[in-house]
């Protein structure tokens, strides 16, 4: 007991239909917290689960101390669920863990590194071995484009698993974007960061994976939420096209003046139209994306709504945690 680090650690775990693996996750995490830190809390944020996740979580509240259950009123998405947790945690260091596969045993080391001065310590997946080829290729393309073309500075294969200092957290929760991406936001706030390479250990077999559409949507969302460079790119393209068209007008005028017979040229004209419309379509696509974003940001709705929060109700009848707790409660 004496080697526990004297600090207050908060763990946020967003949940979504995790009834099957939640108990294992909570037990592993709480016993790690209990043996490693003098003070801790585990905040379970339920993102509108449709299975028995809430039921399992309520049972765990009666078995373990220092757990809070924060059910969102409907499904808002994982990033928003994490935001709800970030708004409510009280610890000196905040850990974001996914129920799906983040290993609890790494937390003490990550917290120790955060205590040594890193504002953010984030996890990086060692290998994407379990992923299908299209996801691996897509991810490589995405990270390449995001970092080189768009200047996003997202570490390839970084995950949600991370530790934030109170300072970094306070900066982070001031960002009230509708669409939030913890991974880019934590680099946006700009405190010293460190990474820790690890192997996620799926608690579910087979693990849940993103589909191609989800993965692509996520990539687009991350880009649009974090950079206006595509828009700038489009502006350049538009200028280029304008110049090209200007030259072409000159060409037409010259041809008109110098040539008598101008009926032919169908090929050039249709090519010009096709190229022009291609870029117009592209410009519209990107613009609509940003206009849509402007709309959602301007609406300024609350990010999320929560239902009544619930807390652990455990009767600890002795110095030590085990045995006494199980049958102590009868309410609901």
């Amino acid at each position: 007991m004496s080697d526990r680090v004297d600090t207050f650690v908060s763990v946020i775990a967003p949940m979504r239909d995790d009834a099957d693996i939640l108990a294992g996750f909570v037990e592993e995490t709480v016993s790690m917290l209990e043996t490693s830190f003098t003070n801790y809390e585990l905040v379970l944020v339920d993102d509108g689960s449709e299975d028995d996740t809430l039921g399992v979580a309520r049972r765990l509240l009666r078995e373990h101390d220092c757990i809070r259950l924060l059910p969102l009123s409907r499904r808002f998405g994982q990033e928003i669920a994490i935001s709800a947790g970030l708004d409510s945690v009280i610890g000196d260091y905040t850990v974001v863990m996914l129920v799906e596969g983040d290993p609890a045993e790494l937390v003490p080391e990550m917290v120790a590194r955060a205590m040594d001065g890193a504002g953010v310590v984030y996890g990086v997946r060692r290998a994407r071995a379990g992923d299908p080829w299209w996801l691996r290729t897509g991810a490589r393309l995405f990270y390449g484009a995001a970092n080189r073309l768009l200047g996003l500075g997202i570490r390839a294969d970084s995950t949600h698993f991370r530790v934030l200092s109170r300072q970094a957290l306070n900066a982070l929760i001031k960002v009230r974007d509708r669409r939030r991406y913890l991974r880019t936001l934590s680099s946006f706030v700009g405190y010293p960061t460190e990474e820790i390479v690890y192997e996620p250990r799926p608690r579910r077999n087979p693990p849940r994976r993103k589909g191609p559409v989800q993965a692509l949507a996520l990539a687009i969302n991350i880009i649009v939420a974090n950079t206006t460079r595509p828009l700038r790119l489009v502006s350049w393209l538009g200028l280029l096209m304008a110049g090209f068209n200007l030259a072409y007008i000159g060409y037409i005028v010259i041809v008109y003046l110098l040539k008598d017979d101008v009926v032919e040229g169908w090929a050039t004209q249709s090519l010009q139209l096709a190229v022009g419309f291609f870029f117009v379509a592209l410009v519209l696509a990107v613009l609509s994306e940003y206009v849509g974003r402007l709309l959602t940001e301007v609406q300024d709705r609350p990010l999320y709504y929560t239902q009544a929060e619930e807390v652990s109700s455990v009767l600890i009848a002795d110095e030590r945690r085990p045995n006494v707790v199980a049958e102590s409660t009868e309410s609901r």
Partner: protein
Amino acid sequence: MTHDRTRCDSLVIGGGFYGCSVALRRRSSGDSSVTLMDAGDDLMTRSSYANQARVHAGYHYPRSLLTGLRSRVNSTRFIEEYKESVVGTFDKYYAVARSGSNVSAAQFERFCERIGARLDDADPEIAALFDPDRIEAVYRVEEVAFDALALRERVRADLAAAGVAVKRRAEAIRVRRTPEGRLAVESSIGVFEADRVYNCTYSRCNRLLVDSGLPPIPLKHELTEMALVEAPEEIAGVGVTVMCGPFFSLMPFPARPGLHTLSHVRYTPHHAWEDDGGSYRDPYAVLEGAARRTRFEHMRKDAARYVPAVEDVRYLESLWEVKTVLPRSEVDDSRPILLKRDHGFPNLTCIMGSKIDNVYDVLECLEEAPA
């Protein structure tokens, strides 16, 4: 029965503020002999002592107009009657949280207007103590605290003056009906016979009932912890309550001069349970058996997010007590007092209320239907 039987008109079980008040009222409404018994070493040592010391002026119940209005009426009377135990030297502030609060600042203002409670904007230097990202508005309110020790002295003197027989270290064990139709209470110091018995034992209300073979009343208990702290200079002279949800109160505790109680809606209740007949647990036994691992750090960390100066409070000890409420008031803010007449036996009355200054409601109702 080897013990002598002590006879009286009214027997009040439980020497908290409610029990004392009921005993005094029975005496003044004509009972010639009133006995008050308490299991503790002294009167008013349990929940009448270990609480926020708040004289509720209504601000606290923005979602229950009735409770708010009654609090205003009652607090005025309480302050008038117990002047010497009321401490008004602290400035009290209510702050409305931006996120997670059940009322908005606008709603709170409207509520206070409707119940006629005065609300002023806090001075800039006080408002600056609160984190504007988390707090929507800060108001100075007219709310006083009471000194539980001074109140005890006063009540003790009143009881003596009124000629109420006070039995300390006297634990009521069970109550039964005598063949003559009176009530007999077996206690640790003998049997008492009375025309009327008032069970004012708060959290232990059902212990007496269950042991007497009577049906328990549905009650919800919480094992609670309030931290006694020394506040840093900038907040030493004030009381702060953040509304209205899982937030905290930092309240001056006049019974321990210089100290505040820090309590938190989320962390103060350590364990909750309900009396549901089948599995009765004596709240005092639960309290005695609990490991009492303090949650002061949790309270401090959360409170400091709203009022950074709370980071520097110094922890002295915790006040542990069982808090009991009626399960129905879980849904809203209302805090009705239970007054159950003829429970199981004729003339056995159970009284269970949790706000010291609301005692007048129950005293008035007692008058309405003379036993």
